[in-house]
């Protein structure tokens, strides 16, 4: 194995500051939370904000280039040969770090308002800071083990935060589900790390990527990529490991915005982009990941049509958009995938925070059927959501347009016309369900006072378990929040959203200029160039863009006709009722994925558990152990009975041993 350097080595004190400030915040808030009271939120936000500033100041460290090496590499400790731990701050890590700390800071500020009056205010921020630390560990690590540690900690933080309102059984169930699926992904990555260590003998990114060609056969490389992708699929909610993400909406809305939209769920994109050299070398892995990404994109979008819970709509759209990113990095369009991560982080955070304002003001109402006409009541939330919707639909001029266009054209460039077609159709569906959300929520008249059954909302008992529990919990929460509202000035929730708006529009402009755009130039030293033969796309980029726009326009038009016309808005109650009643069961039941998992894994596992619990463990294992313990006790007694305390006895044993020795040595001695 040849040692391959990773970046420009040196001591970068600011880097440690970026990494450890959120940890310090978590420790401080956890330890002194009760004393800090309402100061807990500002303290947590300030530490993450400081980390963001430090990351900005370190910009030049991350972008420096010399001798074909880019970025700052700070080695920390070296354990066994090949097991060196350190921090790597290159352009890829820079993008993620800025989003994690920057958007993280805004969401911390927002949470000060959203969570005010919560009984565990400081604990919430301790978890949030811990999440930021875990996520930074993931993206700043310079090796696979550090990545795996970060990967696991992020899942743990997510578990804490989804189940933050642990008095709701549905939140606990959702947290457990998310954790179990995430651990499944961790196992995949662990397996990949084991293979890597066995084959390469090192965990450092540089060594692994530098020696991948010699160390792995193409089959082994595919296995490594596949195992890594299991981790990606679990964390990034890719089919078939996506079922936890919609349930994760049980967490507080800022958590959904930060963890389950902007940062954690994009970890899979980060991992594939980080392992770009592996994916570049394995055509099978590219194929697989591209297909799974496209499948997730369209599956998520179709489910988005059938949702009534505003956060679930956004959750499925998140799943679908990450499908886009995964598809992009899968086929090899790395910079396009990362660009979509960047734009998505802004507009999806904005959508969630906008939705959070609505939910907060409507006393935890999340069902869009009980909203309507909110444009006049909450003009600010409307503007924020509108910008977000336009961005996610890919309306030219908004950020989503540029990144989605880059991804779709990238699939063509890398020779995947079918994935392109799926992507285009998904874009149309996305436009449809996002505008549906917009029309139903903000236009027409307010339906909050309409009887639930008139809207087709079934009795709580027949709804999903999550809905049932939430509705049951609602009354209590309402009271509890009633007192909380007084503390929170409206601006503390509006300001972060206002900051996000210009970014949701403008961040995509970085990609203007095609090959020479600032974005492409920024990532040129990082990602391997696309294979030259694949550079020829069957249609020019302009035509591709026009096709997408036509499909998106069709989607918007359809949504307008169904929900936006005067007639539709006038009869919205009846129409929504009819739609609810006629919703195809396959969509209501989310393709029966949960049922299938239940039948295939949960029930057999439970049966196996009963079998082991009632027979194998008590009879076979415990019985065996008891037998061993009995015989050990008996043998112990036996040996102790030799221990008479009499010297003559002891001397006899000695002589016995000597006799055995002498016989043995006499025999082997005589043999010579």
């Amino acid at each position, binding site marked *: 194995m040849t040692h391959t350097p990773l970046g420009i080595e040196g001591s970068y004190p600011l880097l440690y500051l970026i990494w450890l400030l959120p940890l310090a915040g978590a420790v401080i808030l956890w330890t002194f939370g009760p004393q800090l009271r309402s100061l807990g939120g500002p303290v947590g936000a300030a530490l993450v904000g400081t980390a963001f500033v430090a990351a900005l100041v370190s910009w030049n460290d991350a972008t420096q280039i010399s001798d074909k090496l880019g970025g700052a590499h700070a080695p920390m400790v070296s354990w066994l040969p090949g097991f060196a731990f350190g921090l790597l701050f290159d352009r890829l890590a820079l993008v993620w770090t800025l989003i994690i700390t920057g958007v993280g800071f805004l969401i911390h500020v927002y949470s000060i308002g959203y969570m005010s009056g919560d009984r565990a205010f400081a604990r919430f921020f301790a978890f949030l800071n811990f999440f930021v630390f875990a996520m930074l560990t993931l993206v700043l690590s310079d090796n696979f083990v550090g990545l795996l540690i970060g990967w696991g900690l992020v899942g743990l933080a997510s578990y804490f935060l989804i189940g933050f309102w642990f008095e709701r059984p549905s939140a606990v169930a959702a947290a457990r589900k998310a954790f179990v699926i995430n651990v499944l992904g961790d196992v995949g990555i662990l397996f990949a790390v084991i293979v890597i260590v066995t084959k390469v003998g090192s965990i450092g990114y540089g060594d692994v990527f530098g020696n991948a060609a010699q160390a792995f056969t193409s089959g082994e490389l595919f296995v490594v990529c596949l195992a890594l992708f299991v981790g990606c699929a679990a964390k990034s909610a890719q089919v078939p490991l996506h079922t936890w993400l919609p349930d994760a909406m049980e967490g507080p809305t800022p958590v959904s915005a930060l963890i389950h939209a902007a940062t954690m769920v994009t970890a899979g994109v980060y991992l594939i982009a980080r392992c770009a050299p592996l994916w570049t070398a394995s055509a099978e892995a590219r194929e697989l990941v591209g297909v799974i990404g496209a499948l997730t994109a369209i599956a998520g979008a179709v489910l988005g049509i059938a949702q009534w819970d505003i956060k679930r709509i956004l959750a499925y759209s998140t799943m679908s958009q990450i499908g886009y990113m995964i598809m992009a990095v899968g086929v090899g369009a790395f910079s396009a995938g990362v660009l979509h991560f960047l734009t998505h982080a802004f507009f999806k955070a904005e959508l969630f925070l906008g939705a959070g304002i609505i939910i907060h003001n409507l006393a935890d109402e999340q069902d869009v059927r009980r909203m309507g006409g909110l444009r006049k009541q909450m003009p600010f939330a409307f503007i924020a959501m509108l910008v977000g919707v336009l961005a996610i639909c890919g309306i030219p001029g908004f950020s989503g347009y540029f990144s989605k266009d880059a991804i779709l054209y990238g699939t063509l460039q890398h020779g995947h016309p079918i994935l392109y077609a799926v992507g285009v159709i998904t874009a149309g569906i996305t436009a449809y369900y996002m505008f549906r959300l917009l029309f139903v929520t903000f236009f027409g008249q307010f339906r909050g006072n309409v009887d639930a059954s008139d809207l087709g909302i079934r009795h709580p008992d027949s709804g999903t378990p999550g809905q049932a529990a939430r509705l049951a919990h609602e009354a209590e929460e309402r009271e509890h929040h009633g007192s909380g509202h007084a503390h929170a000035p409206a601006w503390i929730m509006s300001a972060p959203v206002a900051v996000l708006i210009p970014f949701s529009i403008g961040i995509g402009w970085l990609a203007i200029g095609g090959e020479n755009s600032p974005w492409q130039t920024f990532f040129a030293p990082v990602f391997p160039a696309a294979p030259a033969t694949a550079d020829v796309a069957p249609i020019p980029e302009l035509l591709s863009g026009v096709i997408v726009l036509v499909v998106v326009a069709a989607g918007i038009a359809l949504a307008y006709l169904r929900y936006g016309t005067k007639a539709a808005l006038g009869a919205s109650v009846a129409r929504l009722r009819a739609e609810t009643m006629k919703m195809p069961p396959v969509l209501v039941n989310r393709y029966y994925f949960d049922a299938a998992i239940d039948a295939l894994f949960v029930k057999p596992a439970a049966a196996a558990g009963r079998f082991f619990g009632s027979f194998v463990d008590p009879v076979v294992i415990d019985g065996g152990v008891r037998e061993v313990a009995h015989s050990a006790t008996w043998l112990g007694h036996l040996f102790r009975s030799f*221990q008479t305390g009499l010297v003559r*006895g002891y001397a006899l044993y000695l002589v016995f041993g000597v006799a055995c*020795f002498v016989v043995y*040595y006499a025999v082997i001695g005589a043999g010579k």
Partner: protein
Amino acid sequence: MSPPIPYVNSADLHALLPTTVIAAAGLLALVVDLFMSAGRARRWIAVAIAAAGLVIAGVLTAQQYGHSYPAFGGAYMQGGFAVVLGEIAIFATLVSLGLGIGIGRDDQVAGTTAIVLWSTCGALLMAGAGNLMMIFLGLELLSLGLYCLCAMSVRSAARESGLKYLLLSSMASGFLLYGMALLFGGTGSVALAAISAAPPSPLIALGAGLFLVGIAFKLSLVPFHSWTPDVYEGAPLSVTAYMSVVTKAGALGVLGRFAYAALPPATANAILLPVWTVAAISMIVGNLAALQQIDMKRLLAYSGIGQVGYIVAAFAGQTPLGLRYAIFYLAAYTFMNLGAFAVVALMLKDADGSLGVGAFAGLAYRRPWLAAAMTFFLLSLAGLPPTAGFTGKILILASSVGAGYWWLSVLLIAGTAISVYVYFKIVRAMFVRVDEAHVRAERSTNPLPWISIAVCAAAVFVLGIYPLAPSDIIPLAK
């Protein structure tokens, strides 16, 4: 005519400098004590002198690291692994003296301290011994001191243990000496190196066998172990702690040099097979017998029998790494074992007392730090990460599997499984809430064991995670 070679030159003497310093410190402690008036200060002075001598000797030994030199015509091999074994013996002596600030009554401490130091000299000579004479000299120097130390206390059990040890050890020494005589008869030389050069003969085989009996006795391998529990139980705590490590360090040096440097490679495996067999038996029997013990010193004695089985198993196949791994595990055992002894010492009001396993009940609630330390040492003794015991056991397994001794590895794992049961009985007891009225809760007034605990815990942890330890640090026998 070749020029006359001086019989002893300064380099030879330099090789023995650490041993000389320790011996002189013993004398100094005795002489100074003559001018002391009665009182507790006598203890401190004697121990302080001994500690100073040991520290100086430790530094001098460290300076020999990497400078191998066959002193006195090959009788004493300076450098090599003797350095590591020497440091282990010196450290163990230091800790043992600290456990009770010396051994015995105030007016006995100077004498016992001197004896301890001279015993340590014997261990150092054994660790570096290059010929049979030096081995016997070191062994007897070590043992003579121990007979006295065991019987130091006025308790009848202590007297009994000293006498038992004297009788049985003399018997083993007899076999050892007989073996040496046969070896000498077979080779015509006392040098270990001569054995490998001599043609194989029944004399050598039988001689090696009897020689190994003597060493197996010192290492307390089953069935030559029967003295160990009684003597460990009867002797004062600090003597037990001392014996459990220092004798092993010396005997292991002898066994290592015998196995690696003295035996002809062609017959070595056949000659050493019984040693590995008794090591395997020790792992199982030691741990099984430990299950039944209710006295801490006895329990640690039996657990030590199992532990030494692991160490000797590392030699299997005489791979170069095996010797290093054995010494690494001895170092690990030194720290975890002495750490456990230090915990026991802190739980005794009278340094000469004995401690039942029952005294650990609910310790985690009475003295959480002590319980935490004990748990850590027991984890290491049981061979769980992140401790030196774990690393050491993994290395030994790697060595024995690599040498093709699968049966030894399987027995090692079986022995470890039993030992987990032994050690976790104590751990469990510590974390069970009990009525304090039923527990004999004593405290030692001596703070020194805390230092030992801190040092040992740090060492157990560092050796547990420090990556380059055994193969790079410990030099081979040459």
